[in-house]
């Protein structure tokens, strides 16, 4: 058998195994389940729609908080000032080192009253701070990936550290930052489902409500999954378009 033949055989075997696994799982699903998409669509889909709207709101508000916060914290981690570096370090470790579910509980039960936060506010704060820790690490890696000579050249011309960062380093880091940032956006969207535990009636909360109200399980959960997936795909595509738009110009030439 030649190398190519062996490879083809291995690939076919892998596909077959995967297909077998899926078939096995599907075959074990309760086939007696009484599907009723008609009733679901008529009586309950509207509630999921409401939940979807709130999911979009809490996720975008969380993103609006996480993005600037993450950029600032990430830049702090690359700063020369040891105080700024320490603040960045603590921020990342605290929000990355504890479970989001626990953080949501703390925002809601401990911090919401003194800070005057609504349920929505607590959810946004929890999601935003949590995601900012990851965004900070993404920004830091992107900035550190830009050739050190760029910062040196900018500083040699008399630019301040922040001027050099803003006009020279960050624009070149953006391309490396975008793909992992897209993953982080999607993670934020999905993590917003955890806000259901503090009674915030986003998509997952509403899906559970529909389940207990209608005694249907398959339709609401599959629909919820499809809705999350749809938003994720839109986000992915959006970032990919942005990447392509940025890719044509400077980035190719950044590689000397």
């Amino acid at each position, binding site marked *: 058998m030649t190398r190519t033949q062996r490879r083809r055989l291995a690939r076919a075997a892998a596909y077959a195994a995967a297909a077998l696994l899926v078939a096995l799982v599907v075959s074990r699903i309760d086939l007696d389940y009484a599907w009723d998409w008609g009733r679901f669509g008529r009586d309950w889909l509207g509630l999921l729609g409401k939940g979807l709207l709130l999911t979009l709101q809490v996720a975008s508000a969380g993103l609006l908080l996480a993005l600037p916060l993450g950029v600032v914290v990430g830049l702090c981690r690359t700063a020369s000032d040891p105080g700024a570096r320490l603040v960045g370090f603590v921020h990342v470790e605290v929000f990355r080192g504890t479970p989001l579910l626990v953080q949501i509980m703390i925002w809601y039960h401990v911090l919401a009253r003194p800070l005057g936060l609504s349920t929505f506010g607590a959810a946004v704060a929890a999601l935003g701070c949590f995601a900012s820790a990851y965004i900070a690490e993404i920004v830091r890696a992107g900035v550190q990936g830009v050739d050190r000579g760029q910062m040196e050249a900018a*500083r*040699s*011309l*008399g630019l301040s550290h922040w001027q050099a960062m803003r*006009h*020279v380093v960050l*624009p070149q880091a953006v391309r490396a930052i975008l793909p992992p940032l897209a993953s982080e956006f999607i993670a934020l969207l999905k993590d917003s489902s955890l806000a259901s535990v503090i009674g915030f009636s986003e998509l997952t909360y509403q899906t559970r409500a529909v389940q207990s109200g209608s005694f249907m399980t398959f339709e609401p959960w599959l629909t919820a999954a499809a809705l999350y997936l749809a938003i994720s795909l839109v986000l992915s595509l959006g970032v990919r378009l942005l990447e392509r738009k940025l890719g044509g110009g*400077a980035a190719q030439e*950044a590689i000397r």
Partner: protein
Amino acid sequence: MSAAEGPASGGVLVDARGLTKVYPAAWGSGRPPVRALDGFDLTVTEGEIVCLIGPSGSGKSTALRALNGLEHPDAGTLRVLGHDLLDPELDMDLVRADVGMVFQHFNLFPHRTVLDNLTLAPVLVRGRPVDEARREALELLERVGIADKAGERPGRLSGGQKQRVAIARALAMHPRLMLFDEPTSALDPEMVGEVLEVMRDLAHRMTMVVVTHEMGFAREVATRVAFLDGGRVVEEGPPSGVLDQPRHPRTRAFLERVLVGRPRPTP
């Protein structure tokens, strides 16, 4: 500007005394720390062209980079354009705006056009109006012979063109002192000439400190050559002295190595 921080008296632009710089060894590497500078002295007066030569690891680049604060010596005194560079209170950006630097690897900003590379600092640091900065940038590009590339990104330029842009970028800030860190070492041989030509032209009206391996350039253009070894200046003087009649054995050994196969003018 106060008298203490004003233009240096007697046209002394650089006054370095006993500079020391030790790089600690990487933790656990078992290697000894590196003494990059070990009692480095250098004085540069206005209008001088000083070439720093010496074997690799002799501290040439570290010394040069200390002159605009890219390296921070551990000890010694260092005055550049009248500013005390080792004073922690000093606003280094002020000094850097007046000291041009040209790097071995050009370090052009790849995301900006050639013209924008030149105008960025004058607009941001000097607060010059954009159209005025552009006009002058075009004149500078004309002077280094690449005005036709003003709208290109640096990535489309040859090495020699990149380095000429880098020189023009530094000149756009109207520096009082220009530092060159092996400006031709990363170039293909056929492009060395065009960069040296620009530097030769510039030497008539600029004070320059040049780290170089181009002995021909040093002999022709330098007003003074300083030979470094072990982080200090071992021998310095006019090129005719240091390059043609070196007194120090280490200078002699170095020159014999780098000038192998080249005709040396008899004294």
